């Protein structure tokens, strides 16, 4: 694809930002409508998660590592954002076949909607967790905390890129969702969420570092828990993973997108 056509595509996509807004609102409204607590669930859901893990790690499954809950939550919330976005993306084209078959619009809006919706949920969860982290669980209130915003921004682009790949796959292979249901738990354990990377035996270290999530989670932890800027090496890796994934994700999506209407 040439530079001019990429620029034109991005401009076209930008001109549909109103659609993105109303699709995300639809997502929020449809999920909460008819439920007793309505929009309150977006707050209660992460709150319950935090409370449950607090009880488990503080009173049942006691772990020697100091501030383990903080260590765990930073990784776990990021993971939830990734896993939920990607799962939702796997069915987003087929689910919206009434739009895909009837209207002409930049279809990448559909996976973007899912990622933005889960990003909003993640940010709410993180906003609830952050004061608790700083007050009780080893979070450091320093200017370096701002690095988290950079890491989250990069991670959102990375998640979107994977979402674009998975949503393309979901059109042509209807069991993409089932494959994810099997693969994601494996990926969860290949990401250092419950453990520290240096606890992994030397032989398995390459597997851990071949997983992009390891770098993102590590960089976020450095900023929140160590009160330091992530290392230049980590930031470089974040940049590489994000750029490579984004280029590949958009390329694959745009190449297959002309066939979505007839395949979904």
């Amino acid at each position, binding site marked *: 694809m040439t530079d001019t056509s990429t620029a034109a595509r991005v401009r076209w996509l930008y*001109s*549909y930002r*109103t*659609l993105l*807004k*109303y*699709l995300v*609102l*639809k997502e929020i*409204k*449809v999920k909460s*409508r*008819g439920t007793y607590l309505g929009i309150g669930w977006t707050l209660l859901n992460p709150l319950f998660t935090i409370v449950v893990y607090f009880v488990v790690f503080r009173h049942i499954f006691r772990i020697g590592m100091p501030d383990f809950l903080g260590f765990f939550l930073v990784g776990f919330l990021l993971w939830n954002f990734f896993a939920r976005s990607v799962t939702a993306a796997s069915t987003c084209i087929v689910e*919206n076949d*009434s*739009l*895909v*078959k*009837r*209207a*002409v*619009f930049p279809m990448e809006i559909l996976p973007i909607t899912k990622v933005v919706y889960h990003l909003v949920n993640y940010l709410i969860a993180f906003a609830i967790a952050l004061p608790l982290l700083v007050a009780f669980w080893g979070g450091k209130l320093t200017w370096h905390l701002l690095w988290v915003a950079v890491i989250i921004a990069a991670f959102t682009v990375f998640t979107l890129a994977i979402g674009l790949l998975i949503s393309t796959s979901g059109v*042509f*292979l*209807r*069991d*993409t969702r089932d*494959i994810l249901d099997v693969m994601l738990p494996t990926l969860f354990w290949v990401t250092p969420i419950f453990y520290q990377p240096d606890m992994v035996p030397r032989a398995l270290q390459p597997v851990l570092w071949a997983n992009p999530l390891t770098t993102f989670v590590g960089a976020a932890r450095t900023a929140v828990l160590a009160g330091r800027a992530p290392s230049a090496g980590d930031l470089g890796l974040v940049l590489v993973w994000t750029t490579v994934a984004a280029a590949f994700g958009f390329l694959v999506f745009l190449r297959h997108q*002309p*066939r979505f*209407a*007839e395949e979904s």
Partner: protein
Amino acid sequence: MVECTEVSKTFVLRTNRHSLLKERVLSVVRPELREEREEFWALRDVSFTVERGEMFGLIGPNGAGKSTLLRVLAGIYQPTSGQVRISGRMAALLGLGLGFHPELSGRENIYLGMALLGFSTREIRQREDRIIEFAEIGHFIEHPVKNYSSGMQVRLGFAVSLEVTPDVFLIDEVLAAGDEHFRRKCYKRLKQERKRAGRTYVIASHNLQFVEKRCARAAFLANGRIVAVGPGREVVERYREHVAAEDAQSIPSHALP
């Protein structure tokens, strides 16, 4: 102006369709599970031109390829071969409602539908009252669309799409579900807009009187091919003869007196 040159569209019909990875893998070891592909020509060498400001009708039996043709014209399907050229801005209304979501209210769906057509929030706000008035939805506008009758959905969908000001407007059958009063109102509006803005329409319809009366030109499609193109009245005549001939063939002789 719409120019459609030798457009063909094939779909691959698959028996044992392999949309699951498991099936693809299994079929490597077990040849009897391999999918059978059969090409289906939904459109074959379709050519016609619609002049600027013209109302062009598409008629033909179910499955003739009318909807596929409109989707190819709209750019939703890629033609297998041939070319489509449309000059100016194009909009399409292909089916009930513009991807309306049943759980959302009529008003919320107006915002969603208008955004899908590329409008900004401010532009939608300026137009929403006019849309609600034209659709004659009344206080139901705050109710979820799932409680609407199909006629109400059509009215709302059509009222939304009337706000687009395209140079070329593609419409698929949608008016059929509206009642007589609303249909007349729509046709009147379409006529006004066509005269005022020189807008071009391509309308797929089963309403032969409409095509006869309102469409300067029309095309009769059967089995993906064009049987006749020309003045609306003559093309409808050809279609009526065709239907009569088919009926005569399919009525068994012992049923005749």
